[in-house]
């Protein structure tokens, strides 16, 4: 039964057989040992309050398993098997790292691939599996969670593949880098499936703290330090705000932290306290997905962080943020959907406009992609605001498409900066002559981000706009259409640099371009990841039907979303029945 030795104390026999006093002793010991370390993390220090306060007052009845003993079957711990695989890989990476840097350089990559690959396989096996909550309601591996966790795991896999050479070239330790990135993945994946405020907070913090560490990983570089500090300060503030909101929600439920209890409590309360909780929770989500006006950290952090980390942050972290948004807003705040949809409409319009317009003025690739990722998040928010089956499916689909096209673009940028030490857009001038692979790959990925057919991004974007239009979100779709024209302009200007410039107009770094070699360790995987991403981006569009089926399956296989769709349909039906004239667009005629 006990398939996971890591969960040593969750085993079947312990709680049942030992005396209560022994349990308490061991609990307190480990708790105190942990608490000593809490002091290191300012953002985390709020945690014991919430947990302890909630625990102290929960009546025994809400935790039926207590005192009866819990078996692994009750925990349904198989649901977190993919995370367990990653955790094992993480620990093995740390152990291997003890043997020295040479061993780490050699062995850490295959260990990471094995862990993430196993995780992806296990996730595939969870797809459409019979659904039951695990860890007594802390975690739920529904199809939505599986889809987003797969996006996160795949983004980590690709980010790692493109980062080995970068990390080694900068002289940073590889083992710890991989371990921290895997921990961030772990946090993001748990965040996708958490159904409990405490679990959400802890996984959010795991993701955030690892992200802070990663963005400051180039520790001798002032920009990296600045990025980490900014990220830490803003991120801690966001975490504190979330905690405040969560405590209000906890207060409303009167003693439970489960999201379903929160949802039930919110259905009956319409006081200002819920509005406040909504705003606080929404601010955290918006911070995580970098929606305007919670985006200020993005450009600086993207510019100062190591580029592979940016790749992960822009895809994996963002996917987790959207999963969190779905869980909290659709799952809990369903009875307030007009309110949060209005707020998200504003956020989406601002994100699309500002992200895409400011990206026009950027001179470095990383900053440009930072602003472009803000704009892209705005596009995805259209699907969230729709709240229809197509809307959610379009979100999932676009995140999957974004995974490949954005990571493909980052792979090209990393390759270029490894060869030239630059990421200025003007330095790309005339690149087609020296490096056709980067030129072709980056062009295709940027065109896909701009939504040019027949790339994958075109289909994703069309689906988002289609879903938005079908749900009468005309403002969002019109803004989306206009800003995607703007985005074409700045994506195209990079392509213009690379493809159109003649050899005599080439930049200095391109003129002094080193001969293309792939024999260094880490370059082969970089090339593999690059080619894979570009291939999927270019060909995936034409062959996108399976992807559409997958995205639709993720929505139909998720009871939470189905419930929300059904209830909003019912609301609409009653509204139409109540209103004398149906508010359909046909009335225009």
């Amino acid at each position, binding site marked *: 039964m006990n398939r996971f030795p*890591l*969960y040593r104390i969750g085993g079947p026999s312990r709680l049942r057989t030992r005396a*209560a006093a022994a*349990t*308490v002793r061991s*609990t307190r010991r480990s*708790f*105190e040992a*942990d*608490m*000593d*370390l*809490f*002091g290191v*993390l300012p953002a985390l220090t709020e945690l*014991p309050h919430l947990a302890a*306060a909630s*625990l*102290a007052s929960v009546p025994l009845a809400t935790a039926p*398993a207590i005192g009866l003993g*819990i078996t692994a079957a009750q925990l349904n711990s198989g649901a977190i098997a993919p995370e367990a695989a990653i955790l094992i890989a993480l620990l093995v990476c740390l152990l291997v790292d003890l043997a020295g840097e040479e061993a780490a*350089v050699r062995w850490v990559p295959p260990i990471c691939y094995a862990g993430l690959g196993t995780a992806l396989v296990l996730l595939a096996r969870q797809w459409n599996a019979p659904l039951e909550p*695990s*860890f*007594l309601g*802390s975690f739920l591996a529904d199809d939505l969670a599986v889809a987003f966790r797969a996006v996160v795991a795949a983004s980590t896999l690709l980010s790692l593949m493109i980062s080995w050479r970068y990390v*080694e*070239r*900068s*002289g*940073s*330790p590889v083992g710890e880098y991989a*371990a*921290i990135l895997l921990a961030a993945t*772990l946090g993001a994946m748990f965040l996708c499936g958490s159904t409990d405020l*405490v679990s959400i907070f*802890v996984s959010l*913090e795991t993701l955030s*703290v*690892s992200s802070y*560490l990663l963005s400051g990983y*180039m*520790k*001798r570089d002032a*920009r*990296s330090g600045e990025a980490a500090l900014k990220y830490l300060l803003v991120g801690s503030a966001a975490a504190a705000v979330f905690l405040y909101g969560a405590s209000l929600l906890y207060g409303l439920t*009167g*003693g439970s932290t489960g999201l379903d209890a929160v949802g039930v409590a919110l259905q009956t309360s319409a*006081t*200002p*306290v819920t509005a*406040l909780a909504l705003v606080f929770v929404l601010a955290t989500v918006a911070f995580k997905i970098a929606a305007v006006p919670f985006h200020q950290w993005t450009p600086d952090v993207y510019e100062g962080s190591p*580029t592979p980390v940016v790749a992960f942050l822009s895809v994996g972290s963002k996917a987790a943020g959207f999963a969190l948004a779905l869980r909290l807003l659709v799952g809990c705040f369903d009875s307030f959907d007009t309110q949060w949809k209005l707020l998200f409409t504003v956020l989406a319009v601002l994100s699309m406009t500002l992200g895409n317009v400011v990206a026009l*003025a950027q*001179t470095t690739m990383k900053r440009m992609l930072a602003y472009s990722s803000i704009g892209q998040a705005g596009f995805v928010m259209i699907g969230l605001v729709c709240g229809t089956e197509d809307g959610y499916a379009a979100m999932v689909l676009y995140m999957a498409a974004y995974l490949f096209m954005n990571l493909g673009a980052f792979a090209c940028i990393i390759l270029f*900066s490894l060869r030239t*030490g*630059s990421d200025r857009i003007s330095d790309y*001038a005339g690149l087609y002559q020296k490096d056709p692979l980067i030129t072709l790959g980056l062009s295709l990925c940027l065109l896909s981000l701009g939504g040019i057919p027949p790339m994958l991004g075109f289909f994703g974007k069309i689906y988002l706009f289609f879903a938005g239009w079908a749900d009468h979100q005309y403002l969002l779709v019109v803004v989306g259409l206009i800003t995607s024209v703007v985005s074409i302009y700045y994506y195209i200007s990079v392509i213009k640099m690379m493809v159109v410039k003649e050899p005599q*107009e080439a930049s200095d770094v391109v003129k002094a371009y080193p001969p293309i070699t792939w024999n260094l360790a880490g370059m082969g995987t970089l090339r593999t990841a690059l080619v894979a991403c570009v291939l999927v981006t270019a060909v995936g569009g034409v062959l996108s039907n399976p992807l559409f089926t997958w995205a639709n399956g993720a929505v139909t296989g998720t009871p939470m979303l189905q419930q929300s769709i059904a209830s909003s349909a019912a609301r609409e039906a009653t509204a139409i029945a109540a209103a004398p004239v149906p508010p359909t667009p046909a009335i225009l005629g």
Partner: protein
Amino acid sequence: MTIASLTQLICFAALSITLVVGSLGVVLLPNIVYSAFLLCGVFLSVAGLYLLLNASFVAAAQVLVYVGAVNVLILFAIMLVNKKEDLAEIPRLALRRLLSGGVCLGLFLLLLRVDLTTPWAVPGPVGIGEGATIRIGEHLFSDYLLPFELASVLLLMSMIGAIVLARRDVFGSDLITGEDVDQGLIEKVRPPLLLDPTTPSPSALQETI
């Protein structure tokens, strides 16, 4: 009003006043050492509030963690970085203060309104006194098992991250090629484009955007 509830009220008032005044002092006093010590007082009064709520374990944890660890750390940091530094004058400081004060006041009023309009479920669940510690332990190993275990990953990662960031040994060279490395971003800082003497031609300048 029984004597017990009166005592409780007096204790609550005393603790609250200490808390509010202490917090204001932390924020407003210019000397950072005073702020740090006042923070210690604030933490202690919070622990007192927990005691009033019958949550002795949390109170103990509060004292141990915040007063014992966090605050001591802060004091150490202040003492180690005891460097007088003249900060640059902030332009329009009065206006800024006024604005931030306004925002805070607004937030306070909002919270006040929320507090007064919400039908709180008072009194809450009955405290179970000494049993709370056992209850916490039971919860941590049952329905909060997942976050509890995940917290250990989080702490492990923070520890490793802190070590990585703080340790001094730097690889002087790339392990594979033997080139010199500097643990900085691969994308090097370069002078702004317009000042760059190596810029080949004015046409390249126009193409930057």
